């Protein structure tokens, strides 16, 4: 093929990319305009069926990825006795910070796991800290009834502000943040956690604390491990 021919092929390729890009942008805009003007899909009364995740575009079908900070942000909340407690009170320890609320059933179901993790990992430099985003009285009653023996911090809007510092502006519960002993955020787990998931994450965090693995590799190992567990159960 001579130079002119190749040039034409190159130009054709550029045009094809242009058409494709135009179509993508048009589709995206059209969808947005439809959402703004018609406020969504019209469903005839009595004919609606429950949507499944595959009914949505990828943008719609998942919680937006939180912008998680790479290091533990500074914050302070009141403890069970009303004493302001900065998170730096546990500086030098790995933290498992669990955000929860008394009205949230999966949060309550997770409490026994958190209690056992706090006991099992106590001698290995890990501290479980619960952050209850709830009314103080409700938390005090619940903590007494469930005999929560790990540290609890309590707040309402101030606790929501702390959740936002971890990228969870639209807070859902529970979610748990894991940090290493240096205060680096290793991962953030959304939803109720089960023992195998907690063990996987904590074992990787321990390797990180012992300098057996680099942070990026630790995050990758956790992501892969959780993915494999999800595939197995799904």
């Amino acid at each position: 093929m001579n130079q002119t021919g190749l040039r034409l092929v190159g130009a054709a390729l550029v045009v094809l990319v242009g058409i494709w890009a135009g179509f993508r942008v048009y589709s995206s805009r059209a969808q947005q305009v439809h959402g703004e003007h018609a406020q969504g899909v019209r469903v005839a009364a009595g004919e609606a069926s429950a949507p499944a995740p595959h009914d949505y575009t990828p943008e719609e079908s998942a919680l937006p990825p939180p912008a998680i900070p790479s290091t533990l942000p500074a914050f302070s909340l009141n403890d069970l006795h009303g004493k302001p407690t900065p998170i730096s009170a546990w500086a030098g320890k790995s933290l498992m910070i669990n955000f929860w609320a008394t009205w949230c059933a999966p949060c309550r179901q997770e409490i026994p796991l958190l209690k056992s993790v706090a006991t099992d990992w106590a001698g290995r430099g890990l501290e479980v800290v619960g952050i209850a985003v709830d009314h103080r009285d409700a938390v005090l009653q619940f903590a007494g009834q469930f005999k929560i023996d790990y540290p609890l911090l309590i707040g309402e809007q101030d606790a929501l502000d702390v959740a936002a510092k971890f990228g969870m502006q639209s807070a859902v519960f529970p979610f748990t943040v894991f940090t290493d002993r240096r205060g680096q955020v290793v991962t953030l787990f959304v939803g109720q956690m089960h023992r195998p998931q907690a063990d996987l994450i904590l074992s990787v965090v321990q390797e990180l604390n012992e300098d057996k693995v680099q942070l990026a590799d630790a995050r990758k190992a956790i992501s892969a491990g959780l993915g494999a567990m999800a595939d197995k159960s799904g």
Partner: protein
Amino acid sequence: MKRLHTAALASLIGALSLAAPGIADAKPWWMRGVESNAADFLPPDVAFRVAANVDGGVLKVRWVIADGYYLYRQKIGVQAESPDLSVSQPQLPAGVVKNDPYLGTQEIYTQQVEATVPYTRFDAGAHPMQIKVTYQGCAEAGLCYPVITKVIFPTAGYAPVAAVSPRHPWEAIAIIGGALAFLFAGLVLRKGRKLEVPA
């Protein structure tokens, strides 16, 4: 020849920068930072879609609930929002009983639920009717959303179901990337050629 290879490469870069949303979702490793499994769950407006329509002397408020998600009956509320509108307590069908060791017996709804809400207007239709709905639900996979409050306009007949159409965050990058690729390809293709202006 070299120039043409560069042009092809420019096109390829353009194509990659304008990659499909599925590819754009998977951020490159150097941009990922701390990861989470947030994508395992639906946004609240997708998990629970709500709409209302006027049906004679009552309002019908319907929630369409995604598979694997549920709403608490006790947490559903409907209030008047527009002036001179009065709404009664929503009438809800019986839900599925869910035993909660802490809160006791709870009724939940899956798939969909419709509340019938008698209303009275005192404005002779002067204002567009507006109601405020509150609801709270969870995912069976182990996640709860805080109470959601929405102001909606009941419609006659067909009810628009609130949907989300967010602009993809990578769209701007795709547009800029595409534009740069075109500029680059244009420069490469033009290089060495004189601009011929008709006399």
